[in-house]
């Protein structure tokens, strides 16, 4: 029997604003209660008092290399069970969907690992939805490889064929990060990846000029991998890929999205504000998390590297090179909101701006925008009618109180937020 659930006494993030309204769920989808009222003339079977919580769509992470000790790039570890295990643990960060990311690896690794990480719908039982794979590299610039291994990098002399030889199949892949200045990328590879394989092409780990970046966007690329990191710095006579945030040769309807690691380590909050002010609708929060996400300080394994976690920083063992973040996506949302608050000098309106703008924009950067990158903004990353019922309860500081996937409670911070305790009405 399909039950009708009503969540009340809550604030919703909907239509770019915080509104006082109820959330109605049936069959794992968010539904329109007005239609039910007038057409079906029934009331909710079960009602939950949300104790004034803020309800947002579940967070979506487009770049995550591993978590809770598991490394998505490791062929040894790769298995459906491991993926599900991480998918379940990520619900404690408010993440209801993610794109497991694989760093530059050898062809053998790709051909072993890519077929294993299939897309799957999320559930309370199996954790967050798997939205496909993000293959970051190996067709990237050596000078901007960051933590990727030099000996794994490749060039695209023969165009798309080189990529097919390397990866095997694109079937389970959603996003690919590449350097557009490599041979044949703009002319041949990017258009084919977009048109033939339906991939989201992201520019990153690149020495591309703005001109090359623009041609890449016109060729079909729509995302920038962790803006500011692993690319040329913005220069006023040579803006590089960062200049894509204000570039003019693109059609007005083309939105260039950009990932940003807002963990207080990879991007200065002033840089966050700069990017946000210039192009707020394109900002996508990503964790670019390493397997140590969720674990205390120590040494862990990623790709073919040893990494060291110390406080908020994760570096390659023996160097100072940052190799990804250990901030959860929930923390990134909090850090982004704080960055926006820090940038508001008018103290009189700061509370109003916080509640009408900063909270909403920080949350949308982790929900609506990543969904838009993947063209799934009608299903995910939104509380609009018809969308999948993936949502989270947040407190005023944007800490995660509970996570729901397909309408079922997948995680709660304490028993206080268990639906058994929130229920005020059960089926007649």
């Amino acid at each position, binding site marked *: 029997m399909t039950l009708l659930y009503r969540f009340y006494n809550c604030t919703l993030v909907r239509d770019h604003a915080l509104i006082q309204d*109820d959330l109605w769920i049936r069959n794992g989808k968010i539904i*329109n*209660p*007005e*239609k*039910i*009222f*007038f057409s*079906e*003339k*029934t*009331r909710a079977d079960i009602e939950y008092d949300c104790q004034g919580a803020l309800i947002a769509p579940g967070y979506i992470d487009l770049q995550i290399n591993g978590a809770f000790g598991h490394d998505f790039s490791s062929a040894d570890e790769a298995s459906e069970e491991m993926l599900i295990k991480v998918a379940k643990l990520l619900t404690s960060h408010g993440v209801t969907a993610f794109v497991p990311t694989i760093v530059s690896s050898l062809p053998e690794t790709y051909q072993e690992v890519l077929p294993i990480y299939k897309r799957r719908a999320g559930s309370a039982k199996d954790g967050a939805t798997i939205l496909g794979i993000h293959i970051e590299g190996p067709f990237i610039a050596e000078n901007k490889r960051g933590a990727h291994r030099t000996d794994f990098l490749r060039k695209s002399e023969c165009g798309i064929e080189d990529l097919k030889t390397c990866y095997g199949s694109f079937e389970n892949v959603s996003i690919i990060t590449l350097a557009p200045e490599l041979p044949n990328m703009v002319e041949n590879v990017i258009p084919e990846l977009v048109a033939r394989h339906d991939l989201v092409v992201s520019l990153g780990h690149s020495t591309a000029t703005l001109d090359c970046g623009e041609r890449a966007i016109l060729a079909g690329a729509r995302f920038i991998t962790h803006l500011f990191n692993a690319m040329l710095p913005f220069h006023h006579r040579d803006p590089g890929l960062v200049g894509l945030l204000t570039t003019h040769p693109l059609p007005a309807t083309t939105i260039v999205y950009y990932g940003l690691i807002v963990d207080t380590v990879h991007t200065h909050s002033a840089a966050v504000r700069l990017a946000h002010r210039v192009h707020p609708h394109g900002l996508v929060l990503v964790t670019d998390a390493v397997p140590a996400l969720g674990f205390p300080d120590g040494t862990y394994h990623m790709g073919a590297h040893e990494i060291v976690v110390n406080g908020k920083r994760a570096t390659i063992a023996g160097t100072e090179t940052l190799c990804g973040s250990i901030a959860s996506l929930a923390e990134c949302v909090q850090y982004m909101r704080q960055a926006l608050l820090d940038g508001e000098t008018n103290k009189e309106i700061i509370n109003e701006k916080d509640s009408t703008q900063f909270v909403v924009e920080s949350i949308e950067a982790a929900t609506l925008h990543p969904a838009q990158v993947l063209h799934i903004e009608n299903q995910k990353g939104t509380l609009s009618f018809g969308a999948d019922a993936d949502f989270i309860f947040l407190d005023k500081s944007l800490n995660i109180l509970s996570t729901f996937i397909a309408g079922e409670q997948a995680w709660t911070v304490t028993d206080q937020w268990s639906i058994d305790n929130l229920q005020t009405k059960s089926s007649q």
Partner: protein
Amino acid sequence: MRLVITDDYSAMAEWGARYIKKRINDFKPDANRLFVLGLPTGSTPLGTYKKLIEFVKAKQLSFQYVVTFNMDEYVGLPRDHPESYHSFMWNNFFKHIDIDPKNVHILDGNATDLIHECNEYEKAIQQVGGVELFVGGIGPDGHIAFNEPGSSLVSRTRVKTLAQDTIIANARFFGNDIKKVPTSALTVGVGTVMDAKEVLILISGTSKAYALHMAIEEGVNHMWTVSAFQNHPRFLCVCDEDATMELKVKTVRYFKSLMPVHSKLIEDNGAPSLLHTEN
């Protein structure tokens, strides 16, 4: 009739809400004896709806055993259009209270047979034993519901073509594009509202002042259809100071002097008002 004159819009809204609350609570409706309430739309009753919602949230009032009949609905407007009266009632009232959706009646402006829809509506009202209290407003041209000037004073629920004045007045809800405003509506008739045991009309603002004057100080006239309620045994009119601007000083002074009596109609003393007699 009784004319209750309050200071301003919010005082009028609150008075109206408290009256409705007391009427329902004194009636003590239950599963076998439902309270049948007629309801309007528009800016005038908004404040009253807000107050009623507050009462429900404070557990001072329940709509569990209340049946509602709305006055009207546009023809041809999709039910989920933001300006439909279904949308109005859902957003401003029904979504916030504990009413059973099965007890809610609103005319369907998209019915394939509009006349049949109107006739069925009349039957539905009869089937629940008639309306106990019909709440309404008044148009600047003195109309009740969509009973435009010239409507029969014994009319029943039917299709009405809207007057040009009404269409112009409504254009503001349709992006000021006259072409987008519906040109006809389904409406309860003057006779339908007259059948109710009691009629409560809310009137606010100077734009309604002349209509109020024509409704209660001049004769019964189908050009000012609210005037028909002069023939109703229990006609209660609640207005604010601005709406009295066209009334005689004598009229206003008389009804103001009755305020101590009228106040008993909304007293929260748990006992039914002894004034539920004819006016």
